[in-house]
């Protein structure tokens, strides 16, 4: 049987982290009472007009720069038409003709084996980033044959990031999305929490034989976590391979991932293909961005966005941060990868290193093996850790000064975990875990033991 080459591309919608929506002044907030964050424009009241939110443009420029894109100094807005209850205007404002950023790339790392001992770097091309409106939410109440519509989310700014089909499996897609998530969170352009709908991923999947043209692709939607993303993609790849090997064909359709069953199912029917009747958005002039060279002399600073100015102020991206950690602390790349992968863990590590004399190379073991496994066991985030970096630092100092053994240290750690407010020193004293350094005292104890076990000693000396 000829080998199959799976091809995976992604369309990712990241909600922009901003105070107000993309084209109106209403607030952006998760889980507010239904329809409490809806401006006249969001409700599509006739006669209202869109006004572009500067912060959203800056977020998109930052993201484009971080993903190595060319920022289009002139981009355009379009209307994408379809009728749906959560789309009050009957069209979405998006950027179909000329988006704000194009032709970038994202590097991400994968572990070769499950022991996290070897990493490999891959790249995925970023086709484009476009600004567009989010839709509202509709809840179908079948028992009462009604649909409930909440427009709080309608009009919130989104960045759609399109990743070219350079990935080959669920693991790669998951790693790429994870890296994107970290980048967005570092930039602050999106909080990118999938559970809160701030990051939504649709996967385009197809398979083909090497040397042959790409196969028909399906779109997989309704994926709620990075873990499910990998599962959904891998399932879909398998499904397509099986279908084709059994002589079937793949339909160019949209499928939803059913997380309970772990499979993809065709989505409720969309008769034929939708024609979105794209049309330029007449109420928004072209979006013009400047760089230092093209910035006109008398321009009002409030009215323009300078790409170079934003570039100069970009924070260190995860890849840079990881390198810096490796260089500064002499830890392995895999370690630094994990440090950045857990929210707050890198900061925790650095805080511990500051507080203790123990070498970072040793501290890292405690962070990754002990602290992290405890956190995972109890499903806690670093922020929720009952053991603070100070406490851990103090504990490691005791170990470093040889006041306790490493076994004892683990015991103390377990005790600290209970979060009863005791310091490591207090626990050591309480449980008498201190290492005896006094030679004389040690001799006394040994002598006492020997004295108490006369018979055994004689037996031992006789061989």
């Amino acid at each position, binding site marked *: 049987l000829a080998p199959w080459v799976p091809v995976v591309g992604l369309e990712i919608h990241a909600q922009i982290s901003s105070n107000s929506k993309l084209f109106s002044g209403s607030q952006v907030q998760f889980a507010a009472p239904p329809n409490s964050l809806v401006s*006249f424009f969001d409700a599509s009241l006739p006669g209202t007009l869109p006004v572009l939110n500067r912060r959203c443009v800056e977020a998109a420029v930052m993201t484009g720069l971080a993903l190595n894109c060319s920022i289009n100094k002139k981009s355009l807005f379009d209307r994408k038409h379809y009728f749906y209850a959560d789309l009050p205007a009957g069209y979405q404002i998006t950027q179909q003709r000329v988006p704000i950023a194009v032709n970038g790339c994202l590097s991400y790392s994968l572990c070769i084996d499950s022991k996290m001992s070897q990493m490999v770097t891959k790249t995925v091309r970023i086709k484009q980033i476009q600004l567009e409106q989010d839709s509202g939410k509709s809840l179908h109440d079948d028992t009462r044959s009604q649909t409930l519509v909440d427009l709080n989310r309608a009009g919130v700014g989104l960045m759609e990031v399109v990743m070219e089909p350079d990935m080959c499996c669920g693991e790669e897609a998951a790693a790429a999305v994870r890296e994107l998530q970290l980048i967005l969170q570092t930039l602050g352009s999106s909080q990118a929490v999938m559970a809160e709908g701030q990051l939504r991923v649709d996967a385009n999947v197809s398979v083909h034989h090497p040397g042959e043209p790409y196969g028909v692709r399906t779109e997989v939607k309704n994926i709620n976590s990075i873990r499910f993303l990998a599962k959904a993609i891998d399932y879909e790849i398998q499904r397509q391979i099986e279908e084709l090997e059994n002589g079937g064909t793949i339909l160019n359709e949209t499928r939803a991932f059913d997380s309970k069953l772990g499979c993809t199912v065709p989505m409720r029917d969309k008769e034929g293909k939708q024609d979105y009747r794209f*049309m330029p958005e007449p109420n928004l002039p072209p979006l013009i961005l400047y760089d230092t060279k093209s910035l006109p002399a008398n321009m009002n600073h409030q009215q323009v966005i300078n790409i170079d100015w934003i570039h100069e102020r970009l924070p260190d991206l995860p890849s840079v941060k990881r390198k810096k950690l490796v260089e500064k602390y002499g830890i392995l790349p895999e370690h630094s990868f994990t440090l950045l992968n857990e929210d707050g863990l890198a900061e925790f590590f650095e805080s511990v290193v500051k507080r203790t004399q123990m070498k970072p190379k040793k501290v890292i073991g405690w962070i990754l093996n002990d602290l992290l496994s405890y956190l995972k066991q109890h499903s806690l985030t670093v922020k929720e850790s009952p053991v603070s970096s100070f406490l851990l630092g103090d504990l490691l100092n005791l170990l470093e000064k040889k006041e306790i053994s490493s076994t004892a240290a683990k015991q103390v750690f377990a005790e600290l975990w209970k979060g009863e407010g005791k310091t490591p020193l207090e626990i050591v004293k309480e449980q008498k875990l201190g290492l005896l350094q006094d030679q004389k005292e040690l001799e006394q104890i040994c002598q006492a033991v020997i004295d108490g076990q006369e018979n055994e000693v004689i037996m031992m000396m006789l061989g």
Partner: protein
Amino acid sequence: AALNDGLRSQVSAALKEGRVAPTELCQRCLALIKSTKFLNAYITVAEETAMKQAEESEERYKRGQPLGILDGIPVAVKDNFNTAGIETTCASNMLKGYISPYNATVVQKLLDQGAVLLGKTNLDEFAMGSGSTDGVFGPVRNPWSYSKQYKEKSVPKSHSEESNWVITGGSSGGSAAAVSSFTCFAALGSDTGGSTRNPAAHCGVVGLKPTYGLISRHGLIPLVNSMDVPGILTRCVDDAAVLLGSLAGHDPKDSTTIQDDFEPFELPNLTDVSKLSIGIPKEYHAPGLSSEILALWSKAADLFKNAGAKVVEVSLPHTRYSIVCYHVLCTAEVASNMARFDGLEYGHRSDMKDSTESMYAATRREGFNDVVRGRILSGNYFLLKQNYEKYFVKAQKVRRLIANDFVKVFRSGVDILLTPTTLSDAAPYTEFIQEDNRTRSTQDDILTQAANMAGLPAINVPTALSKRGLPVGLQFIGRSFQEKQLLTVAKWFEKQVQFPMIQLEEVKRHDSGVFQHQKSASFS
């Protein structure tokens, strides 16, 4: 003060000097609206709020602190502008009973300056039409139908007045009729393809279409976003300048308004036109242009020539494509703009409950008239993926050519273009409705449409009465954002032609001062 007074010249002064009180002025207008109800110019008369505004204005005048020249001046607004607390219907079943929670920027500006909002005027449904005959509240009647001038000249006396009345033109017919019949001193209309200038010509009033981007569209329910402008209807050019000054300027809520500062201006009294170059575009000698209007146009050109201006024939070669081009772009935008009317958030919602989709379909069928639905269907067709390049993009390219025609002509040294506004004087209603809306629009928009394509300012100035005793106007088209020059020339022309005042029985009854200033036309 009389109801026919110009703002600057008389009414404002009278208010300031206390010779007439705002409440009295308001009451007289309201009474006149009642007695001219048969014109059907108003959809909603906001009697209570208007009187309240008048009272507040009166307080300010008493304290010697009027807000400006518009304080206490009764105005009317076309019913496609949002007015908070007052119904906004667009003359459609879709928005019957719709009370907007906000004021359009232009409405807010008028109110902020103390104007008294009398009510909302009638129009073609969603501003689609050139007769103001296709709204759900019925057609608007041209006040001139009841004028002494028309009755004297009107053919077969056997025809009753009822069937002989003529249309206002459209789609801002209600506003034009309101100004023409003295029920208000100024009115807002909208202009997308001529909808302010056309009824202005038929009703014998000044109709100004400002440069696109000069006046905010925030709150104007759109027809074609890339061509719509709020229009100004007044009884004289000076008043139009006053209104323009109070409305123009950047609006952060409308991203298509220009950022530049706008300076309101007073119109100079031009006496020397020798430095002017007037262009006469030959393509505006359009098929169907009445010989009467042709003669009038020619006479006007001579008027300028004899006064020393340079009058040249020019060419705008792509004029003949503007209607077809407009049809594609307009219907495409209509299809898009009307998509929001689904019955979900506001407006009419059908009782059909089988599914969301069936509810949408029923709501839109019940809410929109044939004209609107026809344009939506056409527009959707042009926007289909397979048609987009062929129609929409092509039309945009043609639009660019049309705009360039004007650029070339203005660059060649011409200051102002002089053209007819309409093909003929107002048609009797019974005759007008023989053809469908689309045919009529196609015919009537030909002389006004191109200015919308190019975003240029244009103004109708009432010129003379036709053989039938009905108003005929001529149009001036100016350079972008050169309203001052445009209005200055228009004012000069207005002074030369001395267009006669309408002689209306109803007005006579309500306002004895009116006929003190009767003038006769020097042009006929």
